């Protein structure tokens, strides 16, 4: 463990010392470096802990187990309150299980990448002010606090508490334009492990087998490809289209769905376009909905149903939905 921590810090400091633009303000640089360290720690460390997750005024207690070995990342998160809802993720699949309703959703997992030691999206952003906010203590561990403050109300603000020793994120808050918390997550205990038994990530054979919903494409049915079928009239300031793919999804089994990722470097929303005539649109899928910091907006176009989902204020999500145009 000591070796792992040392190597992590060494990686960050070495990378930072060779790539820093001189124009970057010292505090922004420190804050960006802390976020980079956090990203690295969360992907590379083996850890197990309990944390509180608060959204919609409701607090939930959850357990997380994370391992990183020669096979890649393996993760398991389970609710400790009420029914044992859980998500299990490895380098090929993400499986979400709700035992109470016998629902299981399977998605293909996407390889993660480490963010740059000093990401220009953070330090040169016109959309956010990123600063350090001193030191604190979470779950018995010393932490540095990083604040990400938006410069308009089309995006959320964030605060991160980063373990001074390992770089692990110990607490995070999502804040609205008035700096009120809309979502919070805080570890109450965490243990850094040397290794984790792979059997701890195996799905219980007694888990419900009914109502499996697979978003993951199988080989013969995979038509995922990069396309240009969706454009935007005017996105909120700072948001840009990052990628667009066309693929089969469980929400629309009879035809492929366009998926466009729109981001300002920190806030990210997904635009899903299902190509079905307006007469077939489910009215309950239209309009705005939210769960904690996640907002969604459904918009009916004559030949398509547009659904925008993401960790951004409802105002931004609706604007992006209304800016969506289809290319014939």
């Amino acid at each position, binding site marked *: 463990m000591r070796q792992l921590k040392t190597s992590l810090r060494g990686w960050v400091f070495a990378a930072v010392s060779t790539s820093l633009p001189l124009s970057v303000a010292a505090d922004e640089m420190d804050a960006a470096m802390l976020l980079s360290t956090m990203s690295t720690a*969360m992907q590379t460390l083996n850890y197990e802990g309990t944390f509180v997750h608060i959204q919609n005024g409701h607090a*939930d207690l959850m357990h997380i187990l994370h391992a990183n070995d020669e096979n890649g990342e393996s993760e398991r998160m389970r609710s400790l309150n*009420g029914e044992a809802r859980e998500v299990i993720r490895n380098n090929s699949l993400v499986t979400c299980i709700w035992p109470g309703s016998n629902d299981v959703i399977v998605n293909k997992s996407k390889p993660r990448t480490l963010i740059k030691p000093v990401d220009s999206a953070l330090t040169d952003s016109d959309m956010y002010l990123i600063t350090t906010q001193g030191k604190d203590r979470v779950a018995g561990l010393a932490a540095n606090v990083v604040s990400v403050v938006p410069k308009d109300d089309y995006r959320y603000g964030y605060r991160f508490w980063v373990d001074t020793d390992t770089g692990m994120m110990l607490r995070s808050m999502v804040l609205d334009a008035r700096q009120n918390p809309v979502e919070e997550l805080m570890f109450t205990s965490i243990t850094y492990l040397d290794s984790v038994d792979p059997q701890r990530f195996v799905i219980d054979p007694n888990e419900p087998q009914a109502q499996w919903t697979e978003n993951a494409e199988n080989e013969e049915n995979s038509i995922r490809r990069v396309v240009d079928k969706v454009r935007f009239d005017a996105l909120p300031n700072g948001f840009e289209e990052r990628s667009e793919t066309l693929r089969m999804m469980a929400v629309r089994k009879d035809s492929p769905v366009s998926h466009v990722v729109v981001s300002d470097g920190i806030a990210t929303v997904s635009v899903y376009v299902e190509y079905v005539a307006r007469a077939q649109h489910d009215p309950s899928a239209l309009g705005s909905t939210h*769960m904690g910091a996640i907002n969604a907006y459904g918009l009916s176009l004559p030949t398509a149903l547009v659904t925008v989902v993401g960790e951004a204020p409802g105002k931004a999500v609706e604007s992006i939905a209304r800016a969506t145009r289809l290319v014939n």
Partner: protein
Amino acid sequence: MSDNQDDVLSRLMDGEMADMQPSRCLADVCQSEEQKQKWARYHLARDAIRGEAVDQTFSIASAVSAALEHEPTYSNVTSLSQHSETGAAAADQQSRVEQTASGKARSRWGLGAAGLGVAASAALATVIGLDYFQNTGPTAAPNTVVAGSPTLTLPSNSVVNSATVSVPGLTGIGTQQAPVDLVSNRGSYWVSGQNGQRVGAEMRLNQLLGDHIEHSPNADWRGMLPYSRLVGYDASAGAEQ
């Protein structure tokens, strides 16, 4: 501290008072320094978790103890001075001594009852206030808990059965127990932006959210933690509401 005492504190925090005498439990809490400190820690932890301003110097238990100590003497029996003014002057010294002793005993009882009444009101206000916090969104102002001034009547079998205390904002507490807010019924769910009501087609939104989380660059920052939104989702949550 015994498991039972821990359980009492925990239930006071959660507002689960169906088979409890909150005033008596509160008095017990005030008599034990260990319990007072533990209760204060519970409140401190909850305030911190909710991101509210935390006053580490404030102790609920101490405040209630102080209320007990400083509550003015209260008795629902006629005072000695009234006795003398209304013709009790003929009573002999021994009788006065007996009446004085009796009066003091009643006054002490009255003091205790009233004090416990205040303590109970503080406890109930605290417990119900916490319940209010649990049932409201993060943007609600905590100090809006007290509004209006209906009367609170404690249960007839309570220690303070002769007292009626006012707790603003509450009606019928004690005569009608609120249903216990089970943890199992309190998961998160999708809410309409138009009317605040739970929406249909939640599993469809969950499918899209799961796909979005996996493809979001945010996952590179925060690993699996954004999935806590899906783990927090409960199909049965809100069914009682």
